[in-house]
């Protein structure tokens, strides 16, 4: 008997097991000719293999060794990112914010999960959690402490709540004792969390 579901929101008609919900929606859309299953594989591959925090880490390391690049990145990140071919979905408009001894930057999206995909990949589960979204704006220092980040006295916290299509990337401070390291080695110190602000770069000698 068709049309007996009109009182229910369509999502409640899906199977209870999440993996089966995906299967149901994929089956419907593939049968309708609206989804190419190979395109789904290609999207997953792109974010599992090619687009991830290593891209942001490369930018940070280069900014640490090249003052002109650092200035360009902080002044007009979109231009730099486009020239390097790192633009794309969820990174169409990027602002890079620099940590200093006076200011520590922390990025959150309280309303959903906005995140610079082309530079950091798909956000980790904690970034999308209710707890991070709720607390990062009100008690950023408590959240930082949970992540093991202790700020020096005199450092203020600047939280960026990504409420529009501007995506924020933190440029962390270059670790002490790294003067002898080249760009590639420095990139190995740049963690994903250090570019969100919930972490610091690895100390010299502790490369990933």
């Amino acid at each position, binding site marked *: 008997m068709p*049309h*007996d*579901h009109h009182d229910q*929101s*369509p*999502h409640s008609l*899906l*199977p209870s097991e*999440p*993996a*089966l919900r*995906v299967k*149901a*929606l994929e089956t*419907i*859309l593939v049968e*309708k000719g*609206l*989804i*190419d299953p190979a*395109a789904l594989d290609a*999207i*997953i591959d*792109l974010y*599992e293999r090619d687009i991830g925090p290593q891209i942001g880490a490369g930018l940070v390391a280069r900014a640490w060794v090249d003052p002109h690049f650092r200035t360009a990145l902080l002044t007009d990140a979109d231009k730099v990112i486009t020239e390097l071919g790192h*633009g794309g*979905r969820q*990174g*169409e*408009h990027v*602002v890079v914010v620099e940590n200093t001894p006076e200011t520590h930057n922390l990025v959150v999206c*309280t*309303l*959903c*999960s906005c995140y610079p995909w082309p530079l950091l990949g*798909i956000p*980790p*589960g*904690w970034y999308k*959690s209710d*707890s991070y*979204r*709720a607390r990062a704006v*009100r008690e*950023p*220092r408590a959240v930082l402490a*949970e*992540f093991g980040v202790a700020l020096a006295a005199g450092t*203020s*916290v*600047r*939280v*960026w*709540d*990504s*409420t*529009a*299509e*501007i995506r924020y990337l933190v440029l962390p401070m270059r670790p002490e004792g790294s003067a002898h390291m080249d760009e590639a080695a420095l990139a190995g110190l740049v963690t*994903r969390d250090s570019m969100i602000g919930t972490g610091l770069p690895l100390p010299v000698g502790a490369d990933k």
Partner: protein
Amino acid sequence: MTRIHDMGGRFGDGPVPREEDETKTFTADWHGRALALTVAAGALGKWNIDASRHMRECLPPADYASFGYYEKWLAGLANLLVEHGLASADEIAAGRSSGPASDALRARRLDAARVEPALRSGGPSARTSTEDPAFAIGARVRTSRIAANRAQNGGHTRLPAYAAGRVGTIVLCHGAHVFPDSNAHFSGEAPQHLYTVSFAAGDLWHHAESADDEVRLDLWESYLEPA
């Protein structure tokens, strides 16, 4: 009153949950599939990112709170498919299609070969505007007293409740961007100037951790008035 997704500043959530292996892009296979399906369905062009966000926000609070992240995406997608006539409720319930989509719609299918170029080009929200920005860097502004969509009751907006009716300072001007409050409801892009506004933590919270801390939000011009 705003919707369940507007949780900035909320109390009671406990520690931020961490994964055992945070290097994995997707912690379950179906997570990646859910994301890919949502991206590929969006490429059909029947809705925009603001409408897609709003559909997730409109989930019943009990579902929003109990669903995992990608479960919210799947629920939002199912509801979008039905709302925009791409699938019927009966098809969603059956997990099978009862017939092919129109030729015109099938022609818009995102094929595997188009995935990388599409994702690497994205969809910028900046627009040219003939209007001059109303505010300059350094201007003091007050946000709307009520965080709500002015045209649609319960509609989409990007002014969080915690920052409503507060005074802050313009620190960045981003030019004109698509206005989500309009675009989410298919009422046109209606671009407006977008600003980053800085608020002292003490102006947002009675018990701010430090008087020197600040929170910055991106806010559209119509959310702001001179202070």
